[in-house]
């Protein structure tokens, strides 16, 4: 099939960007969205033009590197009834029709400055993890694994939250550019495990504080995040975070610094 792409081009964070139109021909329905962009880029290189930059790595939907807005939807999630929620690398061109025009833009959020074209800086998410998204268990200190039992339902629910890949689609989809779904997935994962209890109050308070410092917006329970999440992380995690946050504040926990 043949497609018309309108792609956000921006040479660097300091320069202004704009949408540029490209024609891509002979697209196979079995290609992934990124393979279609590869075809465009090879053509641009041979034509002596600057290829489109975009982040990607594993191309199997697990590393969280890739992610663009496709026709205004993060990873294209929500555009196709038949398609399960996915990452951009796992969206296949069979979801599109010959002659389609597709808008391709980077994640848009104050906390995610554009590096070039479709690649953005998501290090703010790492700093949220740094502020408390861990269990302090230095190497060598661990007790025998079976000395602490974990109820299967807790372990399974913790796993479901822990499958967040940190791609940032939730932020890009949110009208407030809030990272609440990301933050809550880690708060809930660790908060459901017995090993995570000692730091539970401090963790939630510090992570929310860092999230605010990074310039993410507040959560108003709109739900675009969960619909756009390639791993289907549930909004229930946000409720659980709020529950933990309230409990922690009442217990006197306050952010560091």
């Amino acid at each position: 099939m043949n497609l018309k792409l309108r792609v956000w081009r921006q040479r660097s964070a300091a320069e202004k960007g704009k949408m540029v139109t490209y024609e891509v021909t002979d697209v196979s329905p079995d290609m992934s969205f990124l393979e279609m962009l590869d075809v465009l880029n090879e053509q641009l290189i041979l034509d002596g033009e600057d290829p489109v930059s975009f982040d990607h790595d594993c191309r199997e939907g697990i590393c969280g590197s890739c992610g663009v807005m496709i026709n205004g939807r993060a990873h294209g999630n929500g555009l196709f009834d038949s398609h399960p929620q996915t990452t951009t690398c796992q969206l296949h061109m069979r979801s599109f029709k010959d002659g389609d025009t597709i808008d391709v833009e980077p994640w848009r959020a104050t906390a995610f400055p554009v590096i070039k074209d479709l690649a953005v800086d998501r290090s703010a998410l790492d700093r949220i993890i740094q502020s408390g998204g861990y269990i302090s268990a230095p190497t060598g200190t661990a007790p025998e694994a079976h000395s602490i039992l974990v109820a299967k339902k807790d372990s399974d629910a913790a796993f479901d939250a822990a499958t967040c890949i940190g791609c940032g689609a939730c932020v890009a989809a949110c009208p407030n550019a809030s990272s609440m779904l990301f933050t809550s997935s880690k708060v809930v994962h660790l908060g459901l495990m017995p090993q995570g209890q000692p730091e539970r109050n401090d963790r939630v308070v510090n992570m929310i504080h860092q999230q605010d410092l990074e310039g993410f917006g507040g959560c108003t329970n709109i739900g675009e995040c969960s619909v756009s999440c390639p791993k289907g992380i549930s909004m229930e995690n946000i409720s659980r975070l709020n529950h933990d946050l309230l409990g922690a504040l009442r217990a006197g926990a306050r952010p560091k610094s």
Partner: protein
Amino acid sequence: MALDLFTLGEPVADTKAPRDVPIGERWSERRFRAKLVNPANRRKLTVIVVGTGLAGGSAAATLGEAGYKVKSFWYQDSPRRAHSVAAQGGINAAKNYRNDGDSVHRLFYDTVKGGDFRARENNVHRLAEVSVNIIDQCVAQGVPFAREYGGLLDNRSFGGTQVSRTFYARGQTGQQLLYGAYQALERQMAAGTVEQFPRTEMLDLIVVDGRARGIVARDLITGEITTHFADAVVLATGGYSNVFYLSTNAKGSNATAIWRAHKRGALFANPCYTQIHPTCIPVHGEYQSKLTLMSESLRNDGRVWVPKERGDTRDPRQIPEAERDYYLERIYPSFGNLVPRDIASRQAKNVCDEGRGVGPNGLGVYLDFAEAMERLGRPAIEAKYGNLFDMYAQITGEDPYEVPMRIYPAVHYTMGGLWVDYDLQSNIPGLFVIGEANFSDHGANRLGASALMQGLADGYFVLPNTINDYLASGPFEKVDPQHPAALEALEGVRAQTEKLLSINGNRTTASFHRELGRLMFDLCGMERSEESLRKALDRIPEIRQEFWTNVKVPGEAGRFNQSLEHAGRVADFIELAELMCVDALHRNESCGGHFRAESQTPDGEALRDDENYAYVAAWEWTPEGVPPVLHKEDLEFEYVHLAQRSYK
């Protein structure tokens, strides 16, 4: 062997494992004999760690916890992206929670045998010993492993073993283990012990007075090329499967760090040992950019088959039982579908070569869950493999609950890597190599669920102990950034960058990469022969020549330039490919993933030649036009009896 290919150098040997005590005591004895560094002195010592996968992430975090000043480098935007994240199936540990006869010794034995007797016994035994600590460590970090209703950890079995010793987190074990290491690493960054260098790629090693003292790296956003210095350098940069272009590795996975270290003098061991994983989604088109693995755990319940008759194009569901060939169950009755990866892959190739392959291009076999669905019910299959089935459906557009999956082997892992001793130190003092980037534990074939085990063993438990012995003689004299060795390395990287951008030819980097990959898969893949390897060795220098005169790399050096990154990596892959073929050609025996057509048993199994090839081939780099130098490390088997591997 023709001497035009290489010359023979002095043998190498590991001198660090204490051979005067029994194997079960060697690791604790080594730790006892190794020198220590007093906590107050650790602050004065700097360690560079390149890579943040299971090995690099866990090592950087653990060294930071110990009090060293750590500089952590990675090319992705976040340490959580490292390709360990994609490992699906699980991690082995000799916990014997199933009471099924497992032990440290059995894990050791299975791993040496699984590696077709081409791994070093001492390293493998240590790996089996520390495997139990890894599970404890990860559970303490909150890794949500699969559990049973009583709250205990669940296990499953994997290829090449007859016990259930694999711990897992649904089909995302690597992701969960990596996040454990990543979180520990972020904690150390917050504590200020680990300094971070995101989106920064190592492009050379700085060797001063014979010691590894730093690296040259390029900031991928600004394009700035800078030098960084330390008392020791740790490479945890993964494997080189992307030599084959199509592999299950991430697109960015590359050999540049280890290859540049090799060109600085580090020996490269067993480069031809590559693992072709039997259960991947088949190739479907020319534009394809990568292959996707379906976890080996699927072989616990899925049955592999092809039609008995060639050219049978019926819908698989219409083919009666009597007309199906469950060839693994037929040939290997005791291991059945759970034979090791090298064997499962080669048999898939054999049935396809016979014309019995399935799918559009005949390069595929069925992996069928109909029997398991009947036995266990769909909900049980969904719980065990749900995400894998979803992934398959998304990529192929077919529903594996309804029709059998189609699978074909794909390059997945490289057992070869930089040569290291028992301390995981290369032949360059101060250069340590951990995880897939080294060669040490898997011999000629890696068993499933052993890569995660090795990465975390090296990073959490082995390196943080052995590196002390080296650092105890530091801190070393500070390296002046104007030191000739540093300047030479920096200038070399700058010159190569400028050269790549100036060629301005007619072909893209990707087109060279695809050509190299296809050549390597066809001529140095699942089956190799003198003829195929000679052909590859004729062709690779031509590809190299054309690359350096006709590649077109757009953009500038001083900007975010993904084309430039790719070009540098492909330049190194081309050189590495040549060494892989030389190694494969010189090793005139079949072992594990290295199958030489000339060396097989009457029934087509790999035939080792222990008399002539029971050694590690450690290669020394030589300039273009001079044949590489082979250093042999003889493998001694004191505890495992050398035998023809049999899974029948």
